[in-house]
């Protein structure tokens, strides 16, 4: 989750492009975070980051 917060927090093009290249949409995740209950946007990104980390390991 902290890493997800960092990725959203920087919001620079590099991070956006990485998220978008993994089949998600950076902006849509941000909007889900605001428009829907729960921590959905951040949780979705956090899950992705965990999966990607496992692959690297």
């Amino acid at each position, binding site marked *: 989750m902290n890493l997800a*917060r960092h990725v959203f*927090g920087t*919001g620079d093009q590099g991070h956006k492009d990485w998220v978008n290249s993994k089949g998600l949409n950076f902006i849509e995740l*941000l909007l889900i975070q*605001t*428009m829907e209950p729960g*921590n959905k946007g951040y949780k979705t990104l956090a899950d992705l980051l965990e999966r990607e980390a496992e692959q690297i390991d």
Partner: protein
Amino acid sequence: MAGMRRQPMSKKYHVINTPVHNVDGIAKVTGRAEYTFDVVLPHMLYGKILRSPYPHARILNIDTSKAESLSGVRGVVTGKDTLGVKQGIWRRYKELCDEEILAREKVRYIGEPVAAVAAVDEDTAEEALDYIEVEYESLPAVFVPLDAIKEGAPLLHEQAERNINVTRHIEWGDVDEGFKQSDFIREDWFRCSSQAHVCMETHCAVASYTPDGKLTVYTSSQSHYYIKVLLADVLGLRENDIRVISRYTGGGFGSKFELDSAQFCSSVLSMKFCKPVKIVLTREEEFMATKRRTPMFYYLRTGVKKDGQFVAKESRVFTEGGAYTAMGATALYLTGFFQAFPYDWPNYRFDGYRVYTNTPPTSAMRGFGAPQATFCAETQIDIIAKELGIDRIDIRRKNGMYAGYEVPGQAWIQSCGLDECLDKVDEWIKGKGDLPANNGIGIAAYGFMSGGIFNWFDTPYAFSSAVVQVNIDGKVDLFIGSQDMGQGSNTTLTMICAEELGVNVQDIRLHMGDTDKCPVDLGAWGSRETLMQGNAVKMAAAEVKKQILEFAAAKMSPNIVYDLDIKDGWIHLIARPERGLAFNDVVKEAIRGRDGQPLVARGHYTPHRKGMISPAYSFGVQAIEVDVDPETGKITLKDCVTAHDCGQVINPLGVQGQLEGAIAMAAGYGFTEDLPMDEGKILNPNLVDYKLLRTTEMPETTVVEVETYEPEGPFGAKEAGEGLTNPTAGALGNAVFDAVGVSINELPITPEKVLEAIREKDKPETNKED
């Protein structure tokens, strides 16, 4: 040298916490104060600005030939006469520097400057505007954030996908788990409106560029340092080839520390024609084409235990950014931070979005996002208290912040008088007894920062600096970089210097408002001057005092130099105050002994490791009594009390003045002021249709000073400026709730809204809308 004089021992301070009239008051009331409007320079020209009539359009061509041939017109400049630098106050982040001021290719709001004329007089300049021919290609526009973020909405800035300008996320604890543990959950939506600053002095500048490459700009400003640096960025000059002079400023409230069209256009004109150029914005331009308070669309979900213990809060907000970033990014962050103030929330989450829209840019305004946050939070707390059957003072006391509290990952609270403030207000309310029908009292608690920690301006300088010089006759020169815009900081800082140095206020000559002569200070915003500039002044005064005492010690032979002090111009042994020397005599001999050099010292202050937001926070509680006419919905303010913890009060007269001004501004925000728009055009850009609170509508106001000691502040002081603006809209709304049982979630709280809510409440259950 004269020897002995009795001194009173008992008073803690000689100057601090005594009522002192403004040191610049006589100059102001006698008309001697020279404002920018008063500046007249030899061979000066007068400038006027042509502004876009479209909310969103491409500029295809600008033909200035007819205007330039008009008799009396010296010339015209457009964006093509500039370097095309996009500037902004968030200089650390280039993507947030998005405003050219004189548009070159595209306009993004009605009122955006597209050309500027310089002529022999104002009337000629005004006439010339009609002769400038601008060919526009109108583009689709978008005015509301929730429309602007939709797929396919018109894009204002290429780099901002879905028009999202800035996002902010603040989180601690586990909000979702917190909601599971809550006995009661409430969710509400709110709409907070915009507001105009309405400074008495409109934006204005006189720029004078000379052939040696130096630019002098007289201007109405909250930070001459910021204006100097921003002008250097956009004009391609060295910072110190620019001098900004701003000795008197007739109001700021957050509207005057960014580069504005008067400063920029007058500078560009002056550089082109090598003549001084004066531009003064009209009141209509002030409304239509300067920045304003940020409208916000708020969602709050709050979970509490049945005994009123706060458990979790989730807050989401979309802010209407307008066409450019300005200080709106800071307002977004601060609204999220102060949404949690002044309470202990174990679990909290905030997601905020600032969205570009084709409306005039929104930016800083007194309170900086906190009035909006406080309105929403305090309105909801009263509803929750009522639904749970808990006293509204008790629920706040149960959950209030306290000295030693840490806002997780954000801030440390070193001093907090919130409990005492609640006590004072509770006592006031109880003293009122039973109220007449349709009368009610509402309360709101708040906190605010004493200056900001973040260096978004990317300055290498200390945040505040000061120089103190003591002269041979004992007169003291105090040089500061901060700006008094009517809040009384000149007086506060003079008092701090006098107290530290042990002299009287009238012994001090203040120098400010000139970047060539004064040290750097970041300016009057975020309620920073008492704490930050005050600390710099105190340090400088302490250093020069040490020089004087070292000399006095040599003459008086105390045990150690710290056995000496200075009060009321008397240097004395602390244990034997009747034994001492006159300040002026010691200074004279000290200067002779130093080869005739005056006694000089510097001071500075930059907060280090004080959290994410501010080194210190004020706290308070406000209560407002209203009468509501159930036939018309009209609200009358009857009485008001504010218990405010600003640490050690420096000038009680100043605090009273700040409070009265804050109530007028904040009550206006609560129920009379608004900036309605149609397709991006402000519909009430004048003082007849824009409803400011009048003196006849002001309630009786009482300020109760709750003294604490703030270790970070000079003599324990902290802010008494913006914080006072935060609670009023919430207290007003809660007063209406108390009076007639309706809670209004949209600002301003107009009679129409109150009446509609009363009618809806009084409808039989079966007839109510779902």
